[in-house]
C-alpha cells in the first residue's frame, strides 16, 4: 500500500453518467419539487430504478451462487460516496428518493440470514415498479437517545408471531416503502424494556402488513422532495423470521451481535450523509464563485492575507472547509472498502460535513445579498437542504460525543 488519493478510472467514468443525471434531470426539477412538497421526482425515480434494480440483482444472484458478497469489493463504499455527492449536488431531496433498499438493505446485509436476504431484498431486484426500503428508529420520545424507544415487539407463543405496538417518526421514505410500493421498513423495537439496548431488535415490516399505518408525512424546512413519515403500529403481526439477528436479550457469549451488527450500518450511512452534505455545499460554492466571477471578482489562491478582500477570504474559507470535510469522508468510506473498522472516522466525517456545509450554504446566501435570499435561485434552498445533514443519522453533537468517547477511551457510561 501507499498513500494515494487516486479515484479509479472506472469510478470516474461512472461518475460522468451520474453527473449527467444530476445536471440534466435533478437540477431542472429541484425548484418545482421544493415548491410542491410531497410530489414525487418521477423522472429521477424512473431513471434510477432500472440501474439500481440491476445492481441489486447482480448482488443477490452472486450471493445466491455463493460468490463474494459484493460486486467490486474494494471500491464499493468509495463509489457510493462519490455517487451520493454528485447526486446531492444535483438535488439532495431527490437523491433521498432513490428506489432501493438503502438503510433497510444495509441492516439486512449486516445481520440477515441468506434466506432473509432473498425474501426481503429480491423485490429490489425485479419488476417494473420501483421499490423502497426504509429504517425506523426515532420515536416522539426517543431521538438521540435511541435506547429510550418504547415500541414493543411481543412474541405471541400461540402463533409464533411478533406483535408490534408503538409509533415511529421521521422515517425517511416510510410512505414510499409502505404505501407507494411493495417495500420494507426495518423497525427497531424492544423485546424487553428492562434490558435497555440489549432488548432492542430490528424487525422487517413489509408493505401491506395489517396494523401498520402511515399516519402522516412531515412538512419540512428543506429536502421537501423526500418523504418523512410517521408510522403507527397497532398489534401489527409479523412472522417470527422477520426478526433480524438473534432474539436473545442477555449476552451469552459476551456480545450482542444483532444490535451491534445493525448499528454498524451507521458506519456506512454516515459517510453517505457526509457526502450528500458535501454535494450541496459544492453546489453552493460553485454557484457563488460563478456569480462572483460574473461580477469580476475572482478567487486567487496565491495571495497573502492583506491582498484578499473579505469576500475572497470567505470563499477560500468555504472551499477549504469543504475540502477538509470531503477528505474525511473519502477516508471513512475507503476504510470500509479496505475492511477497516471506521466508526470513529465515519462520525468525524459526518460531524465535520454537517457543520461546515450548514455554514457554507448560509454564507453563500449572505454573499449573494438580496439575490441569495430570492427563491429565483437555488441557493436559499441549498441552505435549507443542508441543515438536515447536521441532524439526521446522528446529530453533530451525537457524533461529536462518539468521537470524544473514542479519543478519550471512555464508555457511554463514563462520558454521557
Amino acid at each position: 500500500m501507499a498513500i494515494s488519493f487516486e479515484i479509479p478510472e472506472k469510478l470516474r467514468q461512472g461518475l460522468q453518467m451520474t453527473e449527467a443525471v444530476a445536471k440534466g434531470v435533478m437540477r431542472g426539477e429541484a425548484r418545482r419539487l421544493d415548491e410542491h412538497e410531497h410530489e414525487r421526482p418521477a423522472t429521477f425515480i424512473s431513471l434510477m430504478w432500472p440501474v439500481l434494480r440491476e445492481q441489486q440483482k447482480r448482488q443477490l444472484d452472486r450471493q445466491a451462487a455463493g460468490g463474494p458478497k459484493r460486486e467490486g469489493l474494494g471500491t464499493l463504499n468509495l463509489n457510493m460516496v462519490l455517487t451520493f455527492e454528485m447526486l446531492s449536488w444535483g438535488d439532495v431531496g431527490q437523491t433521498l428518493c432513490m428506489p432501493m433498499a438503502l438503510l433497510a438493505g444495509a441492516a439486512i446485509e449486516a445481520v440477515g440470514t441468506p434466506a432473509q436476504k432473498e425474501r426481503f431484498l429480491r423485490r429490489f431486484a425485479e419488476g417494473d415498479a420501483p421499490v423502497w426500503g426504509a429504517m425506523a428508529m426515532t420515536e416522539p420520545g426517543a431521538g438521540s437517545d435511541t435506547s429510550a424507544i418504547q415500541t414493543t415487539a411481543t412474541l405471541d407463543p400461540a402463533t409464533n408471531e411478533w406483535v408490534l405496538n408503538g409509533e415511529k417518526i421521521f422515517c425517511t421514505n416510510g410512505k414510499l416503502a409502505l404505501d407507494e410500493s411493495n417495500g420494507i421498513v426495518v423497525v427497531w423495537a424492544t423485546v424487553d424494556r428492562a434490558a435497555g439496548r440489549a432488548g432492542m431488535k430490528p424487525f422487517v415490516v413489509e408493505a401491506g402488513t395489517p396494523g401498520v399505518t402511515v399516519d402522516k408525512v412531515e412538512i419540512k424546512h428543506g429536502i421537501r422532495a423526500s418523504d418523512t413519515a410517521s408510522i403507527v403500529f397497532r398489534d401489527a403481526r409479523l412472522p417470527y423470521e422477520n426478526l433480524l439477528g438473534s432474539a436473545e436479550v442477555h449476552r451469552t457469549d459476551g456480545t450482542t451481535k444483532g444490535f451491534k451488527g445493525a448499528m454498524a450500518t451507521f458506519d456506512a450511512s454516515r459517510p453517505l450523509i457526509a457526502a450528500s452534505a458535501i454535494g450541496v455545499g459544492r453546489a453552493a460554492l460553485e454557484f457563488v464563485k460563478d456569480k462572483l466571477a460574473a461580477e469580476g471578482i475572482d478567487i486567487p489562491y496565491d495571495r497573502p492575507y492583506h491582498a484578499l478582500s473579505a469576500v475572497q477570504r470567505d470563499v477560500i474559507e468555504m472551499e477549504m472547509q469543504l475540502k477538509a470535510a470531503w477528505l474525511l469522508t473519502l477516508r471513512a468510506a475507503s476504510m470500509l472498502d479496505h475492511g477497516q473498522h471506521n466508526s470513529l472516522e465515519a462520525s468525524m466525517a459526518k460531524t465535520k460535513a454537517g457543520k461546515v456545509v450548514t455554514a457554507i450554504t448560509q454564507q453563500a446566501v449572505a454573499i449573494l445579498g438580496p439575490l441569495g435570499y430570492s427563491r429565483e435561485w437555488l441557493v436559499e434552498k441549498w441552505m435549507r437542504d443542508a441543515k438536515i445533514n447536521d441532524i439526521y443519522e446522528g446529530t453533530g453533537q451525537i457524533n461529536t460525543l462518539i468521537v470524544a468517547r473514542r479519543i478519550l477511551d471512555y464508555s457511554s457510561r463514563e462520558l454521557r
Partner: protein
Amino acid sequence: MFSLTPTDEQQMLIDTVRRYATEAVRPAAHDADERGAFPGRLVQTGWELGILPGSIPESLGGFADEYSAVTGALAYEELAYGDVSLALRLMTPALVAVPLLLAGTDAQRARMMEQFLGETPPPVTAALLEPAISFDPLRPATTATRDDEGCYVLNGKKASVPLAEGAASILVYAADAETGQAQGFFVEGGTPGLTVGPREKLMGLRALPAYSLMLENVRVDPGQRLGGEAGIDFGLILAHSRVGLAALAVGVMRGALDYAVNYAKEREQFGAPIATRQAIAFMLAECAIEIDAARLMAWEAAWALDQGHDARRAAYLAKEYAAKAALMVTDAAVQTLGGHGYIREHPVERWLRDARGFAAIEGLAIV
C-alpha cells in the same frame, strides 16, 4: 487506488523519527525553548536519522527511489510532534537541497548536492521572509537587478532566516527586476554587502536561531541563480514548502491534543475527571477532527505534488487550513489545562506560541 496506508518503508521512517521525537526531543524541548537552542548533540543525532539524504534520489547520491513530498510530510509530522523548532533547525539544509532537486541545473546539483549527504548538516540556509506586514512570498520586495557585466545585484531586507549566522551559503529569494518574478540566488557568506543582523526575538520557535539579513548591492554571479538562466517557478517550490509547514503543524497539534487528553483524564474537579464533562470532551473531539482533516489536506497536496499535478491551490489550502487548525487546537490545549496551561512548566503554552508561527511563516520548511 485510494489508500491512506503508508508504504512499509515510510512506516519504518515514521517509527524511527517518532522514537527520536518522543524519547530525545520532547524531554529537551522545554529547556531549549528557555535557552534559545537545542544541544548540538541532539541536532547531530537527528541529522544521523538520515531524513534528508533519505529523500535525495539515488541518481544524485541519496537513498530515495525518487523525491517524495508525501514521505517528507510523514517525517515532518513526527519531528514536529517532538518539537517544531528542532524540526525546522534540523531541516534547514533542506531549504536549499529541495529547491536544488526541484529546480537546480545539473551543474548546480553536481556542485552542491554532495554536502547534504555528509555526516554533519551543511551550514546552508535560505532567506524568503521579509520584515513587512504585507509580505507576499511570490512578490518579494527584495530585488535582483542585472548589472553591465551580467551579474545580479541584490538589494533588500530579509527576516527570520534560520541559522544565518555563520552560514556558508544562503539561498536568497528576490524579485527579478525584469520580470517581477521571485527567483533564487545563492549568496556566499561574507559576500560584500551581505550583513547578518542580530538574532531575532520571536514569540515562539525560540529554540530556532533566526536572523534578519541586509542585502546592499550584493553581487552574485549569474551561475549562482537557481535554475540558471531559465530561473525557477517559485510557485512550485512554495507549494512544497507549504505542504511541509502543514505537516509540521499537524505534528504540533497532535502533541498538544495528546497532552490535553491525558491531562483531562487525570485532572479532577467537582469530583470527576474534567474529561467526563462534555464541555471539555467536545473541545477535544473537535481538535481530533481538525487534526485529521489538516493531515489529509497536507497528504493530498503532497500526493498531488508527487504526481506532478498542479498542486499550488491544494498546497495553499492545506497550509492555510493547518495554520488555522494549529491555533485552534493548541489554544484548546491551553484552555483544557486552565491556569496550569498558562504556566511554562506545562508545554501547551509553548505549543500555542509555536503554532502561531504557522500563520506568519512561509518558506521556512521544505519537504
